């Protein structure tokens, strides 16, 4: 081999090595970032989208190699339509925030994986145990954890302190039980000269999802509407009928608006002083704080044999058809976004309840709670809170209940008959799941 040839081969070899090195590193860099698409429902107004984007960016900074894409997907109902449609077409999002009550539906569609497989270290376990038990009730089934609480709420009672004063009631003392509620509402109802009511004593919405507000009456009466496995309901329990009768009687007594009461306009009714006491989600707290032109109180739902309210809101779920790498990345994101500091930030900005005790121990939420004690009511209600009504074939069973409630409230059926029919319908639907 001549000198020149040797030289040539050396240079060639060097070049090949360099190219190989480049290719190797290129392959390393070109290893695509793990793509985590994440559907979320914006249920509390526009600017929240910015917060979500901020979370995504923050996580990506701490975790290069993962690309989190938040995708706004409409209301809760629209988000689950989008998610399941995508799942049925083979390309679901990797993770999504969906209603906690959708758990059984997602399990039945074989769309999600339990979180237990991702809980490995002691730290992970501590994180999972840190969530409020009340929120875990709609997140666990069959001994497994299927959802992680993110934007959760409970129903609370708001009352107009000014109107209380005008009616001769102590503005700092909210009705604590059914009898007191009835008495207060009677004093608070005002009529004009022609007998038309200008101010209702109490208003409990019954459109959209009346079952949720119904639970604020059944829970204090000591009745649980569905079992934990989601396979059995008790609508025809006398205690349940009694609760419905109480609601209907409020209307009959003229202290509660007649017919079906619209959920969306209830806060406005409160601002307009058309209702002195309203039951609505704690998620409305920021809205009411901003727009009520008067002093108002926030209190726990009045009790009867016990106190209590249903929980509500959305959990994170991880979808089955995503790749293991994507699922792992999604799990990290979910862990990151539910850390106390971020949970606190989320709670302050939206009015949802901080999902863990640790969140309330952060400086931000501590101060917020001091400045604005009303924000703590929902949290204080958690020990008495029960799971939101949820079963297999949830939407269908819930509709049977909703229709029954609306029939009773509009006088089309008696409470006993309405609940009996709803029970029969629910039994028929759930037969396949027993």
């Amino acid at each position, binding site marked *: 081999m001549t000198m020149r040839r040797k030289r040539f081969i050396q240079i060639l070899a060097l070049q090949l090595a360099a190219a190989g090195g480049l290719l190797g590193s290129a392959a390393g860099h070109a290893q695509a970032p793990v793509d985590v698409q994440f559907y979320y429902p914006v249920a509390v107004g526009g600017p929240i989208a910015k917060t979500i984007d901020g979370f995504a960016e923050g996580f990506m900074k701490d975790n290069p190699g993962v690309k989190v894409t938040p995708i706004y997907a409409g209301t809760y109902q629209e988000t689950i339509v989008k998610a399941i449609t995508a799942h049925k077409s083979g390309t679901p999002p990797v993770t999504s925030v969906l209603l906690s009550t959708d758990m059984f539906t997602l399990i039945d569609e074989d769309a999600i994986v339990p979180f237990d497989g991702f809980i490995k270290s002691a730290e992970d376990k501590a994180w999972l145990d840190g969530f409020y038990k009340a929120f875990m009730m709609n997140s666990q089934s069959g001994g497994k954890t299927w959802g992680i609480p993110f934007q959760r709420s409970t129903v609370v009672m708001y009352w107009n302190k000014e109107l209380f004063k005008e009616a001769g009631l102590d503005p700092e003392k909210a009705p604590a039980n059914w009898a007191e509620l009835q008495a207060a509402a009677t004093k608070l109802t005002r009529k004009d000269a022609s007998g038309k009511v200008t101010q209702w004593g109490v208003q409990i919405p019954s459109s959209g999802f009346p079952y949720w507000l119904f639970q604020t009456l059944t829970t204090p009466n000591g009745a649980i509407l569905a079992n934990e496995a989601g396979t059995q309901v008790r609508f025809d329990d006398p205690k349940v009928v009694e609760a419905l009768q109480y609601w209907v009687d409020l209307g009959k007594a003229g202290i509660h608006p007649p017919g079906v009461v619209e959920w969306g306009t209830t806060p406005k009714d409160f601002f*307009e002083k058309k209702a002195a006491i309203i039951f609505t989600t704690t998620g409305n707290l920021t809205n009411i704080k901003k727009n009520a032109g008067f002093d108002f109180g926030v209190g726990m739902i009045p009790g009867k044999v016990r106190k209590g309210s249903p929980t509500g809101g959305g959990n994170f779920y991880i979808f089955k058809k995503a790749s293991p790498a994507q699922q792992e990345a999604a799990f990290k994101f979910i862990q990151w976004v539910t850390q106390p500091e971020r949970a606190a930030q989320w709670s302050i900005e939206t009015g949802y309840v901080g999902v863990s005790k640790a969140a309330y121990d952060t400086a931000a939420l501590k101060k917020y709670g001091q400045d604005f004690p009303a924000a703590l009511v929902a949290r204080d209600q958690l020990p008495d809170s029960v799971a939101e009504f949820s079963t297999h074939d949830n939407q269908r069973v819930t509709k049977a209940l909703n229709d029954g409630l609306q029939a009773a409230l509009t006088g089309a059926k008696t409470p006993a008959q309405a609940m009996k029919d709803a029970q029969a319908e629910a039994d028929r639907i759930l037969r396949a799941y027993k």
Partner: protein
Amino acid sequence: MNPSSATTRGVQRLAYNEPTRLDALAAWLLALLWILPLVYAFWTAFHPAEYATRFALNAPLTLDNFRRAWEAAPFARYFLNTTLLVAMILAVQLVLATLAAYAFARYRFRGRNLLFGLVLVQLMIMPDIVVVENYKSMVRLGLVDTLLAIGLPYFSSALAIFLLRQTFMGIPKELDEAARVEGASALQTLWRVYVPLARPVYTAFALVSVSYHWNNFLWPLIVTNSPHARPLTVGLQVFSSVDQGVDWSVITAATVMTSAPLLVAFLLFQRQFVQSFMRAGIK
């Protein structure tokens, strides 16, 4: 009415064909009733939230609602998307329907009636019902989150084909033959003779198509994931909050923002708009 007395009164006075005061009153009342929601929208958009339900004349004006609406979502992008989408759909619909209608109207071939029946089926089938199937198709084609995906199921419009076929069938054959004599091919005849004569139908259909696709919601929601391809209807959904109460101030501000261009355009061009319907070559 005595015809002779009418004649004596003079042909110029078409009194009994003129609208009465009652007509004018009724028309105006109806118009005021009809425009009430828009008036409400303007009122609420420009006044603070407390005045959304109270109509005090001395209420202060504010632009804050617009600011909040603007910040809630990238409306400029949504507006652009919707405009492009609607224009694209209309353009493709017109082209495809013209070709198909021409075939149905002027050609004889086996299976013509069967095919036309198949076309008619789409007249009544809302693509919204078959969303899951169509979404699967979009995934297979790799088109999810594009304007094309939103438009594809609608490109072939049975209504357009139906209308154009009807119109083409009504065009006198002499015009065809005249064009033939000048040596025009089938497509040239189509372009030079049929299309201009069917202009009113094109305009009528355009109106139907634009207004439907401007308002379409469910399918775009399912098939778009990002502001990249999202149209206005999906974007406006952000104000349809479930947890918080209805915020009329922001919804109406967003509405005014997004409808104002259309309203202004209609106001300025309504004469031309309506005239374009009637500018027909046949008469």
